C-alpha cells in the first residue's frame, strides 16, 4: 500500500515538472512587440515610483519641526587623599519644537546621579523663543544667564575644553546660573563690524544667610538659579553687549542690577517672604549688582578666552534679624586651547582665581587638560586640577578646596 502511494506521488511530480518545463522550451525568442511591452511596463512603473517619491517629500517641510539635541558625560574622578570613583556626570537632553520661522520652544533637562544612587532631575532652562524680526528674538521663561559666556555657551561637557567648570561659575558662585523672566536678544551689523546683545528683566536671585549662634548673621551666598517665584518681589534688570571687531575676536561686557533680600537662612526651609513670621522676617532689600567682561580670540588651531564676573550684595543696616554687612563674590579665568595640526589631539590650560566671603570655598586653580577628539562631538578628556585653597585659621589645616583633582571624562554632544 505504501509502495503504491509513493509511485503515484512520484508520477505526479514528474508530470508537473514536464508541464512546467515544456512551455519555456517551446517559447521562441521574444519579438520586438514583446520587448516594447516590457519597456512600456517598466516605464510605467518608474513613473509611478517617481510620483510616489515626489509625493513622499512632504515630511521635509512640515510647519512643525521636532528635534532632540543635548549632551552627556561619564568618567572617573580621583581626588587627592580619596579613592577614585567611576561616575556618571550628567545626561542633558535638549528638546526643540519649532513652528515655521516664528517660534521655538527649547527645554533642557539635566539628569544626575547622586552619591546615594538617587537620580536627580532639574529643568536647566525652558524658554519660548519668538523670532520677532531679523535682529530681535523675545525669549520668555527660564533661561541660562546672559551674564558672560561660560554659563550660556560653554558649560556643556562636549564644549568645555576641560572636564570641570572654572571655580565660581557653578551653583552659589560668583556668576549667575540662570534666571526667570523676559529677555530680548539678537545680533546686528555695527559700524562695519558685528555685534550681539541680550537684555533681560527677571525675578532675580535669592540671598542666603547663615549664623552660628542665632544672634550674628552673615551672608552665605547668592542663589541665582531661575527661581519660579519672586519671594521678595524685587526684580533684576541686566544684559550683555558684545562686539566682534573681526570675525575671530569677540569682546563683551555684562551688567545686572536691582534689589535682593535675604529669604533663606541656612537650615531653615522653605524660603519665607519678608514680613512673615520666621528668622527672615522684616528684612530690608539690599543692593544687588553684577559686573562682567569676557573675550575670545581664535586663530588657526588655537583659541584663547577669558572671563571676569563680580557679584556684589549691599549692607542691611535695618533692625531685621539677619541684618549684616554686604559681601562680594568675584572670579576670573583665562584659558588657552591648542589642537595639534593634522591630529585629533588637543591640549588645554586654564587658570582661575575665585574669591568669596568664605575662606572655605576660595580657591586658586591651574587646570591642565589633554583631549582626544574621536569625533568633533565625542571627546575623551583627561584633566588635572592643581588647587590651592586657604587655611582654616582656627585649626591651621587647609580646607578641602586645596585638594588636587584628576578627571577622565568621555563627553558626547548630540
Amino acid at each position, binding site marked *: 500500500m505504501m509502495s503504491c502511494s509513493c509511485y503515484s506521488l512520484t508520477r505526479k511530480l514528474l508530470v508537473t515538472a514536464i508541464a512546467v518545463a515544456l512551455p519555456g522550451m517551446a517559447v521562441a525568442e521574444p519579438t520586438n512587440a514583446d520587448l516594447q511591452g516590457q519597456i512600456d511596463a517598466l516605464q510605467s512603473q518608474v513613473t509611478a515610483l517617481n510620483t510616489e517619491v515626489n509625493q513622499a517629500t512632504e515630511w521635509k*517641510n512640515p510647519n512643525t519641526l521636532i528635534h532632540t539635541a543635548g549632551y552627556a558625560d561619564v568618567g572617573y574622578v580621583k581626588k587627592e587623599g580619596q579613592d577614585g570613583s567611576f561616575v556618571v556626570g550628567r545626561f542633558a537632553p535638549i528638546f*526643540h519644537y519649532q513652528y515655521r520661522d516664528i517660534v521655538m520652544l527649547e527645554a533642557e533637562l539635566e539628569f544626575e546621579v547622586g552619591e546615594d544612587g538617587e537620580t536627580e532631575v532639574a529643568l536647566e532652562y525652558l524658554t519660548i523663543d519668538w523670532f520677532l524680526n531679523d535682529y530681535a528674538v523675545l525669549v520668555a521663561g527660564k533661561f541660562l544667564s546672559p551674564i558672560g559666556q561660560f554659563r550660556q555657551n560653554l558649560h556643556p561637557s562636549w564644549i568645555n575644553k576641560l572636564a570641570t567648570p572654572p571655580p565660581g561659575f557653578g551653583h552659589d558662585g560668583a556668576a549667575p546660573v540662570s534666571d526667570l523672566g523676559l529677555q530680548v536678544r539678537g545680533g546686528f551689523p555695527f559700524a562695519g563690524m558685528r555685534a550681539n546683545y541680550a537684555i533681560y528683566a527677571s525675578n532675580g536671585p535669592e540671598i542666603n544667610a547663615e549664623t552660628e549662634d542665632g544672634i550674628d548673621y552673615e551672608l552665605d551666598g547668592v542663589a541665582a538659579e531661575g527661581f519660579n517665584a519672586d519671594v521678595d518681589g524685587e526684580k533684576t534688570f541686566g544684559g550683555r553687549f558684545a562686539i566682534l571687531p573681526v570675525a575671530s575676536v569677540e569682546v563683551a561686557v555684562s551688567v545686572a542690577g*536691582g534689589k535682593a533680600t535675604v529669604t533663606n537662612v541656612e537650615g531653615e526651609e522653605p524660603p519665607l517672604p519678608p514680613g512673615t513670621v520666621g528668622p527672615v522676617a522684616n528684612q530690608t532689600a539690599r543692593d544687588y549688582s553684577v559686573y562682567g567682561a569676557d573675550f575670545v580670540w581664535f586663530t588657526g588651531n588655537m583659541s584663547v578666552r577669558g572671563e571676569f564676573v563680580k557679584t556684589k550684595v549691599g549692607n542691611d543696616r535695618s533692625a531685621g534679624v539677619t541684618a549684616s554687612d554686604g559681601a562680594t563674590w568675584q572670579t576670573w579665568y583665562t584659558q588657552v586651547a591648542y589642537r595639534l595640526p593634522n591630529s585629533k589631539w588637543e591640549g588645554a590650560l586654564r587658570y582661575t582665581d575665585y574669591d568669596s566671603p568664605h575662606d572655605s570655598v576660595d580657591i586658586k586653580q591651574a587646570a591642565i587638560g589633554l583631549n582626544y577628539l574621536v569625533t568633533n562631538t565625542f571627546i575623551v578628556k583627561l584633566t588635572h586640577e592643581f588647587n590651592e585653597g586657604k587655611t582654616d585659621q582656627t585649626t591651621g589645616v587647609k580646607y578641602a578646596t586645596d585638594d588636587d583633582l584628576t578627571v577622565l571624562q568621555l563627553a558626547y554632544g548630540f
Partner: protein
Amino acid sequence: MKFINDTIHSSVFFAAYLMVAGGFLITALLTTALFTTAQASNYPAAGNFSEGSKVWAENCNRCHNMRGPKELRDDQWITTTFHMRLRAGLTGQETRDVITFMQASNTKAGATQVAVESSTGATGKETYEKTCVACHGDEGKGAFPGTPDFTSSDGILAKSDAELIRNITNGFQSEGSPMAMPPKGGNPNLSESGIKAVLAYIREAFGQ
C-alpha cells in the same frame, strides 16, 4: 566709601534699567517686520550659500568644535541653526544663509540642488573665494582645526591632480581630521572644469 558704593550701585542699576527698557521699546518698534517675514509661503526663505559658509566657519568655532553638514538632515539643520541663532547672536539673514549652506552641503556626491549659485564660467580664484575660503581660509592654512594646511610642503597638495580631483568630487576626510569635506566642497553645482580650475588656483596660490 559708602557714598562711592551707593553711587556705583545706583549707576549700575540705572544703566541696566535703561538698557532693558530701551531694548524692549526698540524691540516693540521693530516687530512690524514680523508680519513680512512670518507670512512667507516657504520657510525659511532661501539664503546665500557663500555667505552661509562664511558665517558657519567664522562663528561656530568660537564656542565649540565644528559640526559638519553631514551630521544632520535638512530639517534638523533648521531647528539646530535657529537654536544657534540665539546662542551665537546671529541675525535672521545669517541664520537663513547658514541653513542654505548646510542643507546644500549635506547632499550626496552627484546630487544637484538649485538653491546654490552656479559656478559656470567662474575662475578658479572666484570659485575658491565662494566655495572653499570659508574652511580653507584666505591664506590656505585652514580657517579652523581639522582643515589641512595647503602651504605645507609635504601636505595635501603633494598628492596628484587625479587624486585631488577625486577627493574634491566625492568629498574627503583628511587624516587626523574629525570632520570630512563634503562632495564638491558643499557646492553641488561645481562642474568638472570648475574643480580643475580651482585646483589649479590652489596650487598656484598656496603650493610650495
